[in-house]
């Protein structure tokens, strides 16, 4: 096994490189992804490796970029769209939600749209309200879209390769703060694939189940390690894909621990974690609950520009730690 530690940006780039070597139909399009290497440096040297025909710098028009990609996908190509900030997908929402997601169904299955839309999301960079959102519920609420939220480089690589293989549109949401930090686990060499729709038990435990995606997995993992020293044993589950959502490991875990906490960075109102809670509440594992389900999410406000306020607006490690300790202590 390889011991290669990569950042998420490197792992995503590697996956795109592998897919482009494997299939001629794969190409990337987006703003500043060519010579500049992407706003977050994700595409990097791909322009120099594959040329301007396959790593396509586009004008600043998100609707145009996704529209071109949908057309290309319908004609047999496998486009990977990079939208510079996930907030800008609002510009392209007609192509994403009304075209890409629905064409397969509205044409009776005659055509499909093998498109991947990668885009950075999340707060923590001081980029304010229009560049810091977590928008997974926008996409998860559109039938026909798959939604992937990787939490580490190894998963990002394997999941992205599967997303590119997928015959249907996949929205791939990368947290900006994860781009530059190496994961805990090495990234395997080669074209390893991780199937979409399979939750991962990141850490086993017996007192509390935490369900989290993206950067909240890292934060929760740190809390779990810390609380282990206090004798609180946390099981951490990363669904990895929000649509489809693999609930079986979550139910199994709740049956074991009897306590569930769900953590997301996006606003709590109508967030994807509410779907997790609803599924648990409607499952047989409900009868095993020994505590009310705890929801930890961002405030229902636009992300503030002031760094102190930006920090308070979303769950931080100390918040997760306090909530985890409290739920285990109060409910015995």
């Amino acid at each position, binding site marked *: 096994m390889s011991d290669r530690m990569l950042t998420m940006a490197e792992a995503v780039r590697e996956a795109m490189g592998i897919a482009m070597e494997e299939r001629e139909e794969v190409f990337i399009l987006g703003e500043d992804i060519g010579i500049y290497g992407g706003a977050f440096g994700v595409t990097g040297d791909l322009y120099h490796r594959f040329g301007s025909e396959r790593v396509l710098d586009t004008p600043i028009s998100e609707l145009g970029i996704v529209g071109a990609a949908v057309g290309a996908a319908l004609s047999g190509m496998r486009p990977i769209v990079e939208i510079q900030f996930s907030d800008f997908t609002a510009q392209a929402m007609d192509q994403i939600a009304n075209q890409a997601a629905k064409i397969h169904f509205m044409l009776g299955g005659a055509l499909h749209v093998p498109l991947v839309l990668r885009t950075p999301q999340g707060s923590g960079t001081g980029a304010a309200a229009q560049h810091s959102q977590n928008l997974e519920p926008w996409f998860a609420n559109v039938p026909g879209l798959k939604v992937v939220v990787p939490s580490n480089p190894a998963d990002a690589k394997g999941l992205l390769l599967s997303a590119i293989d997928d015959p249907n549109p996949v929205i791939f949401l990368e947290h900006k703060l994860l781009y530059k930090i190496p994961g805990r686990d090495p990234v395997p060499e080669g074209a390893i694939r991780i199937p979409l729709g399979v939750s991962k038990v990141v850490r086993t435990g017996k007192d509390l189940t935490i369900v989290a995606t993206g950067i909240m997995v890292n934060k929760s993992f740190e809390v779990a390690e810390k609380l282990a020293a206090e004798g609180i044993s946390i099981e951490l589950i990363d669904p990895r894909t929000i649509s489809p959502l693999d609930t079986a490991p979550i139910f199994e875990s709740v049956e074991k621990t009897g306590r569930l906490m769900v953590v997301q960075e996006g606003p709590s109102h109508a967030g994807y974690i509410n779907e997790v809670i609803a599924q648990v509440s409607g499952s047989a594992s409900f009868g095993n*609950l*020994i505590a009310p389900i705890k929801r930890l999410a961002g405030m229902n406000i636009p992300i503030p520009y002031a760094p102190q306020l930006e920090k308070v607006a979303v769950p931080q490690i100390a918040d997760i730690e306090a909530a985890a300790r409290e739920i285990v202590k109060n409910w*015995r």
Partner: protein
Amino acid sequence: MSMTMETGELILYHVKPGDRVKSGQVLFEVMTDKIDMEVESPADGVIEQLVGEIGVAIEIGKPVLIMQTDTEVMSFDFGGDEPLPEAPAPVVETVAVQPAVIEAPVVAAPAPVALPPMTNPQEIRAVPKARAIAEDRGIDLRTVAPTGPDHTITVEDVGGNRLSDDQIKRQVANKALIAKGLEMTRSIPQISFSRNVKSGSVDLTSVISNWARVLRTRPDLNISPKDGSAVSHVGVAVIIESKYGSALPVFKDPDLQTLSELADLFASTAKSAHNGKVPLAMLSGATTAIFDLTRYQMNSSVPVLFPNQVTSLTIGENFSGEKIISLTIDLRYLDFYDGAQLLDSLISAL
């Protein structure tokens, strides 16, 4: 049946020796002075013997049939003739099923708790698990003082975290049984080896399977508990947790199953052990044992030899994620060199 009933006439059996029955299944019918009634099995198990005579009156308390229940005391069959330590519950419970006198239900006096008498149980705040426990144990939630936030009844409030007396008794007996078995092997000349495994598949299922495959090449190491002669199967006992303490269900010839079949069998066995049951057929025939310590984030331990087993394995894991496999051998059956080779064969196979 009335409380004054002294005899009942056996009308017919619904089962015959060798039948596998489920708890609640009708075993036989008796005629009393008032009614005919069906008598149900108190547990899952196998019918051993029918001892009553059809058409004959049987006194209350006399056996009607003998059955072996799927054991609730979880241990393993040492196979020797050694008497078990004092008062352990037997490995397999044999129960005499008889028509019981049905008494008027005894209503447990509720603990004196001052609560508004009109409280509807539905209006009481309790976590779902506490409700389930209360229903299971016949506890009236109106009599329970809530200690949780917002006056909510917690699992602890209904005694959910306490072990039942029966559970404690069985755990004590189970430990005594295992301790007795290990005392029997203490004087055996033995040695242990370990090695780190850097790569390959070392999940428990593949270790069980590959270890059985290695032992199959050495029929002399799979011996009968009865007389020490070679047996034709490989039986891998795996130490797992159960409701009543450590259990050692035996996986027979696991190398002849596919890995996914074996994984399924292991998962279902672990689950039923968790609920306090292991199928009878899995309690004997062990020729080796495996203890997976990686589930407890332990590095390694010296494997212990169980009676009539020549080898024993543990699987551990160190901080850098390397697995460590340790082997103990009975030097009456294996040389130092043989033992080292055996461990080497296992690790090469993984």
